[in-house]
């Protein structure tokens, strides 16, 4: 079994409380997670032990249905979920970590770590497969965090109610 770790970080231009509010909403993943076309089942505010389901884009035109279980919640700091449905990727673990930081002009911002851990069987073929899929996965993770940044910006617009 080959076990892989893929991690990306980004600075989100919003206080950690606002970031946490959005990432905790299992109904909202299609609004910022790249490749999540639709949340097909959710339980609202993420709760340990409960699940949610997504329709995802994988490679090219391929689509898949995934089911995620919330494993760990450390408020404002860390979220860990495990997922199924991304064959040949198995034992998928998705981790978000957050740390308050200050932006260059002194505003409250959030450093986000986005990490995905998984195994691919198939021996050497698995390594080859990962070499193909990993760059797309990384790009997706970066896009997701950029989307999250834009989402928070759009909801903080001057005329916010």
């Amino acid at each position, binding site marked *: 079994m080959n076990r892989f770790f893929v991690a990306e970080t980004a600075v989100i231009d919003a206080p950690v409380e606002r970031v946490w509010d959005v990432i905790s909403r299992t109904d909202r993943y299609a609004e910022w997670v790249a490749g999540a076309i639709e949340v097909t089942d959710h339980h609202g505010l993420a709760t340990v032990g409960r699940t949610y389901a997504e329709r995802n884009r994988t490679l090219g035109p391929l689509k898949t249905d995934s089911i995620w279980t919330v494993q760990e919640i450390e408020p404002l700091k860390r979220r860990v979920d495990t997922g199924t449905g991304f064959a040949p990727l198995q034992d998928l673990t998705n981790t978000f970590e957050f740390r308050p930081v200050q932006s260059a002009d002194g505003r409250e911002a959030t450093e986000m770590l986005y990490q995905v851990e998984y195994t691919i069987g198939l021996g050497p073929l698995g390594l080859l497969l990962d070499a193909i899929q990993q760059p797309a996965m990384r790009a997706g993770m970066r896009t997701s965090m950029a989307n999250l940044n834009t989402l928070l910006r759009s*909801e903080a617009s001057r005329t916010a109610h």
Partner: protein
Amino acid sequence: MSSTQNQDTVTSHQARRADVVVIGAGLAGLTAARELVAAGRSVTVLEARARVGGRLLNHRLGDGQVTEIGGQFVGPTQDHILALAKEVGVATYRAAVPGENVYVRNGRARRFSGHLLPDPLALPEMGIALARIGQAAAKVDPAAPWRAPNARELDGMTYETWLRKAGITGAAVDLVNVFLNSAYGGEARDASALFSLWYVSTFGDETHPGTMERGTGTTGGAQDSRFVGGSQLVAQRLAEELDGRVQLNAPVRRVSQDSTGVTVVSDAGDWRAGRVIVAVPPLVASRIVWDPLLPAQQDQLFQRLPFGTLMKCVAVYDRPFWRAEGLSGMGLLRGGSPIREMFDNTPPDGGPGVLMGFLGGREWRKWAHRSAAERRGAVLRCFAQVVGERAFDTVDYVEQDWTAEQWTQGGPTAVAAPGVLTDFGQWMGRPHHRVHWAGAEFSPYWNGYMDGAVRSGQHTATELLHQI
């Protein structure tokens, strides 16, 4: 019947009198009233709201500027509304703003000019779709769609089913839905194929057969022009001309008729008239208490003509910044996007910049119940895809959800599901004894549009004058 007659005799003592009572001060009701007054009849218009215009509504931007949050566009072959506006002194101007439009697909934005979408895969399919729709719509008589060849077969399936049967698939169906999102407040799957082809056949007049291109087009099409001062100004001018004959805050609750006349019971009192014109949306009309009851088929028809689900979302900026970047502010956004179609709605003499997007159909169903801040965020993200991130720097943001309006109940117009037109369509404009019908939904041309409303108001006034 006898108890009703007693009640009418009692109320008719206090009732005010008019030759004709018109219910509803939208374009159709006001136009009908104008014709009747010109013919020397005494008329009262009873309007439920505290304003006239119905589905036409100006939003004030300050400094005397407005932008529309209801119907706004007019174009060639819509001669009735254009002539009427001219008569009441409301000028028009070209709606299109110079610059490139933007096409957004899978989150990627591409600029384009004119009508040619920058999508080589979707284009040929769209061409085929337009040709098939054109051929089929040409066989439908705008005045009697139920007489079309294969009417029952066409009315037995949804428009989406018909499109797919005609070999039109993914991209073109989605592009048709971009249009229907605002035109129906729905999608091809909500409407009957016969209804939809008929709807296209109404995009014209007695000498210009309806075409899809005219319905969807900007310059030269239904989105060609707008009114200086906003479309509601046409209704306001008509009401001014009617000089005290429009009674606001007068929702009509009950209409009773007997051999001598009609009693109209409203929250502002009762009226007794020889004839009544009902110029309210069909479904809203079915909720008035009718005595005697409407013919069952007509009542069933009105219940089966609900409006779509549509909201206009408007963002205001200190100026139309996108114009300096060579953009027209017009955007078409493919499936999955909350806003599917958007326009530059800046007032004609510049002033604050205004972007307007339609949140309709399925997207409305997905977003209407979300929190206002989340929905506004989603709308602004669509705008940002088209004009860039300055779209987030709004000075004002306004939504008009027509489904939340008691006296409209959706928008922009009625959409018939399979089975309605062939089984009940012929009951559409049939007078119910002394009660006549008017409204955009009763017109064989530009059905559901301002022009249809004006045509229908004129037609019904003429029909009524022939009978009294």
